[in-house]
Every structure is written in structure tokens, then in C-alpha cells.
């Protein structure tokens, strides 16, 4: 018994991901304790809030945008293109999808899919800007995609403040999506959005694409060595454009889901405040852009956040501790903070992999 415990502890410490998670939870406990709350109490509230009662449904619901955004970010990331503009693509797509769901004079069977398509198209077009910037003007996507988040926020804020404002409320918001045009809820997990099905299909699709198709292989090759890829005949510029279109499209669809499937009104700042795009980015890094592990990592981060909200309600510890834990995990993995002696043996045994080693 003691022997197996030791063996499994060793295994955890050798695994950089597990080790980083354990260490960041300890660090989080220290921060919580330093600000005057018993960390054991806080963490037990977190677990209870994330997994029991309506917490489980909320965790699964939150998993949808986090994993979706992770998927969106991972497609260009595998090709070595870093899209930090997920947030902007999400809000632009979200607004377009919402407006379609509100104003399209068609039966609901058509309106809901068309709203998702509208969101995808708008998000993809917003992502096209930095893609063209890089291929035509040599502006790094890393910077331009991030800077475009701010005008996206401003543009949507303007739209819901003036042309598409609901005059009956004081906040900057659209009118609610008509009940018939909302994305339905499933009987699963106490009524989680049907978008979950869409997300799972998307995950499977991307996994198959990555592993079984030529362009899927080519993106990975470009990510590993773009010069080699170019030499091998891959049209790298065209690849940059399509991976960004795919990324922005998924982001826009997730934005649409968040309104048409969850909140039903596009409220200025609503999609930004929870930081889904950024959580998604961290999930993609944690899972090294593989769809299966992204689902697991996304569930973990969603549980942290929902548990964090419960912790805030019950023991008055701000939920943002979840954001701190997420960032610390990634920093530790990227910096390869593993027990040194063990790290070297582990590297010999199983061949060391890092967050960035396989992007």
C-alpha cells in the first residue's frame, strides 16, 4: 500500500502537467491563507461548488466556451500562428449571430443554424484582417490580432448602444432573442445547452482532420519548421489565411452560442468579462493542442472557475484566484518547473516533451 502510494506520487511528480497543477494549487493555498482565509475551507467550497447540485451543470456549461475557444486557438497554433485575437473574433461573431437570431424572419429551424453561420462568418472575417496583415504587409499576427480586440469591443459596444439598442433598458444591450429562436437545452446534466453536441462533433472533426488529412499534417509541419514546410511545397501564406479563418469562425460560433444559447441578450462587455478566450488559450497550451486532452483541461479550468464563483459566494474569496491558478500552471509548464533530479530521469525514460515542443 505504502509502496503503491509512493510509486504513484513519483509518477505525479515526474509528469510536468500534474506536478505544475499540484504546485500551483499549493501556491494558491498560500495566497488564500495570506489574505486571511483557511485554504482548506476555500478549496472544499470550490470542489463542492463545481461538482455538486447545479454546479455540475454550470461547470459543463462553462466548458463549452472554454474548450471551444481552445479549439479555435489551437488550429492556428499548430501551424505556428499565434492568434491572440480570439476575444475580438468572439464578440464580433457573437453580435452578428445574435442579430441574425433576433431579426431573421424565418422559421426557427432555419434561424438557429443561420445565426451560428452568421457568427462564424463574422468571426472569420475579423480574423482575416490580421491574417492578411501578416501575409501581405508582414505585420505579426501576434500583435495585430491582439490589438484588434479593442476596436472589436468598441464596435460592438457602439452597435448595442446606438443602432441595435433595446430602448427599454438602461444598459447597452440588444433586445432579447425571441424564445423560439434560442438554442435548445438538452435533458443532459440538468439542462445543458445543445451546443455541447456541436462542440463534441467539432472536437472529433478537428481531431480527425489533424491526424488523418494532408492539410492537417501540413499545418503541424509548418508549426514545427515553416522553412522546411515551404521547401516541401506547402503554400504557407495560404495556410496562414485558412487557419485564421477557421479560428475566427469557431470563435464567432462560440460567441453566438454564448448569447443565443445562454444569456439571450448581447450585453456590452458580457462576453469579455469572464475571459473565455484567454482561458481557452491556456487550455490549448496545457493540452498541447490535442482535442482529447483539451476537453479534459477545459473541464478542469471550467471547474476551477465555477468552483471559484461558489467560493466567492460562500467564503468571500474572489473567484479570480482561478485565473491566477490557470496562469501559474501554464508558466510552470512553459518554464519546465519539474523536480530537477526527477526531470532528468524522466527525460531519459520517456523523452521529454514540453508545452512548446509540439506546437
Amino acid at each position, binding site marked *: 500500500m505504502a509502496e503503491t502510494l509512493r510509486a504513484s506520487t513519483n509518477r505525479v511528480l515526474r509528469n510536468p502537467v500534474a506536478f505544475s497543477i499540484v504546485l500551483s494549487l499549493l501556491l494558491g493555498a498560500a*495566497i488564500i491563507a495570506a*489574505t486571511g482565509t483557511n485554504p482548506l475551507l476555500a478549496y472544499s467550497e470550490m470542489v463542492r461548488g463545481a461538482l455538486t447540485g447545479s454546479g455540475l451543470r454550470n461547470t459543463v456549461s462553462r466548458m463549452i466556451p472554454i474548450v471551444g475557444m481552445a479549439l479555435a486557438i489551437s488550429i492556428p497554433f499548430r501551424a*505556428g*500562428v*499565434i492568434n*491572440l485575437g480570439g476575444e475580438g473574433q468572439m464578440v464580433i461573431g457573437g453580435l452578428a449571430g445574435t442579430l441574425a437570431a433576433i431579426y431573421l424572419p424565418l422559421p426557427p429551424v432555419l434561424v438557429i443554424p443561420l445565426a451560428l453561420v452568421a457568427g462564424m462568418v463574422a468571426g472569420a472575417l475579423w480574423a482575416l484582417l490580421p491574417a492578411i*496583415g*501578416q501575409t501581405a*504587409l*508582414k*505585420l*505579426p*499576427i*501576434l*500583435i*495585430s490580432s*491582439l*490589438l*484588434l*480586440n*479593442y*476596436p472589436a*469591443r*468598441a*464596435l460592438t*459596444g*457602439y452597435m448595442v*448602444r*446606438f443602432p441595435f439598442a433595446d430602448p427599454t433598458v438602461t444598459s447597452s444591450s440588444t433586445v432579447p432573442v425571441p424564445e423560439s429562436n434560442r438554442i435548445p437545452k438538452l435533458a443532459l446534466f440538468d439542462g445543458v445547452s445543445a451546443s455541447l453536441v456541436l462542440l463534441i462533433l467539432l472536437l472529433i472533426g478537428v481531431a480527425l482532420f489533424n491526424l488523418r488529412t494532408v492539410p492537417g499534417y501540413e499545418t503541424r509541419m*509548418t508549426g514545427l*519548421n*515553416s522553412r522546411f514546410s515551404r521547401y516541401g511545397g506547402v503554400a*504557407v501564406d495560404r495556410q496562414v489565411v485558412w487557419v485564421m479563418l477557421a479560428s475566427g469562425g469557431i470563435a464567432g460560433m462560440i460567441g453566438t452560442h454564448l448569447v443565443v444559447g445562454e444569456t439571450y441578450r448581447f450585453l456590452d462587455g458580457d462576453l469579455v468579462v469572464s*475571459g473565455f478566450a*484567454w482561458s481557452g*488559450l*491556456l487550455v490549448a*497550451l496545457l493540452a498541447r493542442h490535442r482535442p482529447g486532452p483539451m476537453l479534459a483541461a477545459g473541464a478542469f479550468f471550467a471547474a476551477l472557475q465555477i468552483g471559484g464563483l461558489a467560493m466567492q459566494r460562500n467564503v468571500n*474569496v*474572489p473567484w*479570480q*484566484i*482561478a*485565473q*491566477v491558478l*490557470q*496562469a*501559474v500552471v*501554464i*508558466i510552470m509548464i*512553459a*518554464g*519546465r*518547473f519539474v523536480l530537477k533530479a526527477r526531470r532528468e530521469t524522466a527525460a531519459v525514460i520517456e523523452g521529454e516533451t*514540453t*508545452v*512548446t515542443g509540439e506546437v
Partner: protein
Amino acid sequence: MFEQLFDSALVESVVRALIPILLAALGGMICDRAGVFQISLEGMMLVGAFTAVAGSYLATSATVGTVIAMAAGSAFSLVLAYGAVSRQGDPIVIGVAVNLLALGLTSFLLPQLFGVRGVFQDPRVDGLNRFPIPFLSDIPIVGPAIFRSTIPGYLAMLAVPALWVFLFRTPIGLRLRGVGERPVSAETLGVNPTQYKYAAVVASGMLCGLAGAQLALGNVVQFSENMSSGRGWIAVVAVMLGRAHPAGVLGASALFGAAEGLGFRLQGNGLPVQITDALPYVATLVALALARKRFKRILELTAA
């Protein structure tokens, strides 16, 4: 129309917008010269703003707040230094995560320490004083803007020529550039690249801390969640546009300061705040597109 837009108040708001960006960008410039890829200016600035307000509140002194912000910025910069320099981790991943860590940490500590959400304002938070320089501050239009500044403001202006002298006219500056351009050669000459890279990152942390203090104790006297709102990223662009040269960085920062100041003025003239808020970012993007320089290094880093 033109006269109505261009007066001393406009110049003043331009200078006010420029100073935090300039301070952060000078930090980014030092890192760039030392060959450290630095995109966590945003996060360090946010930490600086938070600790400046916290320090000023606890000691009821803006000076103490500013010093604490510089110390906190430096300490926080060690995360990137250790992760990216010592452990050779991916500087982009660590930089992005450090920014998110700063956002999470400050949003967590705000209610935890001060019991408020979103914005913290208190009469005990001491703002930075302005020190007018006799005669010079009487120069029309530019005088009040430039020569009636805060300590971080004057430090930012002095840092431009000082860093030029440091980088291009001192042996240490030469070695720092050597570390950035030819680390192996520098090492052969007995220069320890790790030391120089650490020093550069810590210097950028200190400058970003100062930028945060100016933002939270000079431009306004309060802390609000995520108040750096992209200025650190604009500073990253300023380093690129200014080709990591002090004069160039000053010029680029002035451009973004002008966009923000002008936006502020147009807002006063009735333009919706959503439009004017977007102006500095759009100006940054347009400037990048017009410059059409080949940002080789960052492209190599992101697409290698």
C-alpha cells in the same frame, strides 16, 4: 475648427497619455536590445498600478506608492526572467501567461484587500504632485504640458537621452547590445549573457512599475480592474516601430499618445466614447501597416 482642437489642453492630454506608454516602451527597448522577447509589459504595468495605489493608500504618500510600484514591477518581472532566461521556456507563452497572472492577481487582491470590486478610490490615496519648472512652464502651448509634470513624467523624458547615452556610449551598453546581437561572441569576451538579460528584464519591470504609478496616481487617482487596457501592448508595438532606438521609441509613443489625446478631445466634442476609445489601437495598427517594416525577429519567433 483646427484652433478649437489644437491648444495647450490638447498637448497636455497627449503628453499625459504618452508618458506611461513611453516608460513601458523604454523597458521593452532595453529587453529587445538584450535579446529578450518581452511581451509582458502590460501585466507589469498593471501590477505597478495596483501596488502604487496600495502603497499610496497605506502610507498616504504618492512617493512611497511609486517606489513600491517600481519594486513590485521588478519583482514581478523575475517570473519572465527565470522562466524564459534561466529555464529557457517559450517567451511568448510565458509572456502571455504573465499578463494573465497580473490580471488575475490584481482582480483577486482588489476585493480581498480593499473590499471593493471593479474600482478602488479613496481620499487616502495620495496622487502624484506636479512640479512646474520656473520660466519653462510659461512657454505657450507646450510649456504647461511638458514642464509641469510629475516625477515619473520627468523621469520618462530624461530616460530617453540617458538611455541613448547608456546604450551607445558606455561599455556596459555595448555589452548589453552584444548580448542581444551575438550572445556567443559576448560570452567569449567574458560577458555573462544571463546576467545582462536578467538586468534588462528587471529594468523593464521597474520602468513598467513606474508607468503603472503614473497611470494610477498621476493620470487618475484610483485603481480599476485591467486599467492598463492594452497600453503595454501598444508599448510593444512602439518598440518595434521605433526600431528599439530611444528617439524612435519616443516618436512612436508620441504618435499613440496623440491618438489617445485626440480621442479624448473628440469625445468632448460629442463623438461616442466607443469610437474614441478605439482610436489609439486603430492608429497603432495603421502606423504598423504604413511602416511596412519587416518585423523579422518576431515573425521568426512566432513562425519558426
